[in-house]
């Protein structure tokens, strides 16, 4: 059974009296440990898809099964609880809390999950070391470079050891070199078993992924895995 199963997903936005069909009839199945790039032109529904996968949003129709569990009827708080345990997010604009230090930012998901301080400290130390941030632990985001910020964000996204890492243009705000560094970092996480789903405009990064899902106008235009034959 696949980790992620989307079936006939619809998502519509109403703006005044015009309706935008952000997702239409999307069927995707992703196994645990996959490395997927979501590509497509601007406005094609990539972010909408990622938000849905991350349980930040809810489909208007269709079913989404995460780890075998139907998420359709979950309340916002149940969604939050599931996000906490299963999903890590990496955003284009980092989304670090400016008044908290790097270590505190990384600890945030554990604090929110009510994990006690001693265990938190251990995990954060490990993450800081693993992401090459040990000497930046007590710096605030405005004292860090873009690459360091994104590394803090990735450390934060993985500190709870989620099964799925969702990245919306993680290199979009970085220069080519640091972007590559971040890409390698994410890939090494994938190599350790994390399911990696990346929305990207960068063809080079998309090339590196083992599977590409091309979106257009809210629908899946092509999926490099579908030729292999995914149950659906």
């Amino acid at each position, binding site marked *: 059974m696949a980790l992620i199963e989307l079936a006939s997903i619809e998502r519509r936005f109403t703006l005044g009296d015009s309706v935008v069909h952000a997702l239409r009839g999307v069927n995707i199945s992703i196994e645990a440990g996959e490395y997927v790039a979501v590509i497509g032109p601007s406005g094609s529904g990539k972010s909408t898809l990622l938000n849905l996968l991350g349980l930040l949003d809810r489909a208007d129709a269709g079913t989404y099964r995460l780890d075998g569990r139907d998420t359709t009827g979950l309340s*916002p708080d149940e969604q939050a609880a599931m996000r906490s345990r299963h999903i890590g997010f990496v955003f284009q604009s980092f989304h670090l809390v400016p008044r908290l230090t790097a270590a505190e930012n990384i600890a945030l*998901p554990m604090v929110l999950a009510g994990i006690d301080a001693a265990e938190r400290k251990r995990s954060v130390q490990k993450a800081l070391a693993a992401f090459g941030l040990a000497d930046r632990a007590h710096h605030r985001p405005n004292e860090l470079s873009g690459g360091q910020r994104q590394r803090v964000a990735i450390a934060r996204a993985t500190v709870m050891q989620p099964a799925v890492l969702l990245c919306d243009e993680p290199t979009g705000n970085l220069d080519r070199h640091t972007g590559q560094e971040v890409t390698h970092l994410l890939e090494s996480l994938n190599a350790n078993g994390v399911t990696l789903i990346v929305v990207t405009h960068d063809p080079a990064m998309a090339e590196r992924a083992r599977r590409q899902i091309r979106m257009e106008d809210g629908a899946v235009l092509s999926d490099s895995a579908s030729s292999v034959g995914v149950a659906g």
Partner: protein
Amino acid sequence: MKPLDILRFALRAVTAYPLRTALMLLAMSIGVAAVVMLTALGDGARQYVVNEFNALGSNLLIVLPGRSETRGVNPANFFTETPRDLSIGDADAMHRVAGVVRVAPMVAGTSEVAFGGKLREAMVVGTAHDYLALRRFQLAQGQFLPDEEGQRNAAVAVLGSKLRSELAGSEPVIGRMVRIGDRRYRVIGVLAPTGNAMGMAVDEMAYIPTEQAFALFNTSTLVRIFIETRDRAAIEATRTRVVNTLKARHDGEEDVTTITQDAVLGTFDKILSAITFGVAGIAAISLGVAGILVMNVMLVAVTQRTPEIGLLKALGASGAVIRLAFLTEAVLLSLGGAIVGVALGQLGAWGLRLAYPVLPAYPPYWAVAAGLGTAMLTGVLFGFLPARRAAGLHVVDALGRR
């Protein structure tokens, strides 16, 4: 999220915006300081009046000539002249009323008082031996008016402490003669300083026997009879007997007014308590204003930190956690302001005590508690709406806004 972590998180937010926090603390502390200081002032005034009255002695019953329509709880009755007569016989009759311990008649007028080369216009009180104990006065030197048979109307005088020093400076006065009006009196005693009791400058008066005052002022009517009852509990029963006795002596007409300390004190106490509550209420309005400010500031904070709220939610925070975090922040701001306010208020009360040493301007405990409590309640109440708004934000929308 653990409560301690919520508190720490809110504390970080409070300290992260020092200017905002300082302004909030200021607004809140002014309200609380106003409550604390104004109640200190009101309660100080109340205490002052209560103390003044207590100095009179709590078993005191005062008889005034004339029938008062409002049954004598009006302090103005103390000072009004009435045409009805109270005689020395009436005062003597009081000695025989059950429950009466001491009786002192009172005649009063102003007269010239001369000693050595010095001359003063002074209030002269004609009364009797018991007046001293009844009014809880102390003697500095000598003795008070005599009580012995045959001595009661002797030409002797007792001087108030201030009158004595004005007339004689540091010279001895006991045994020497003082002229009051056109009569001469031997000074037998000097009162210890008492201060101002009930608006009468006790220290500036001279005291002579009742009959002497009758002669001096060419009258035979008393302005007051002071009666001390056995105990506080007996005061009402004694009052009834006193009134009945006087009624019998005045051809069955109830033409006197009696005032008890308790009644007068009660009235003053009520008035001044009402004033204290009044000023506390007015000050509380400023707390309400501060509360609205808290709400406004928190609403701005929610708007400013919308992406952060989105992030927290994305990281797994439930609506309840977000709500609690923002509510805690609001309460911290108000409570911090309240604590600063109590400190400022105490400082103000201390200043008041320095400026008016006679006023025991200590803020009552209830006012301090109410100030802190109201501030905290204000924080919860006015923090609720912003917190709910924060909790209700949609994750994707919140994240998207930068």
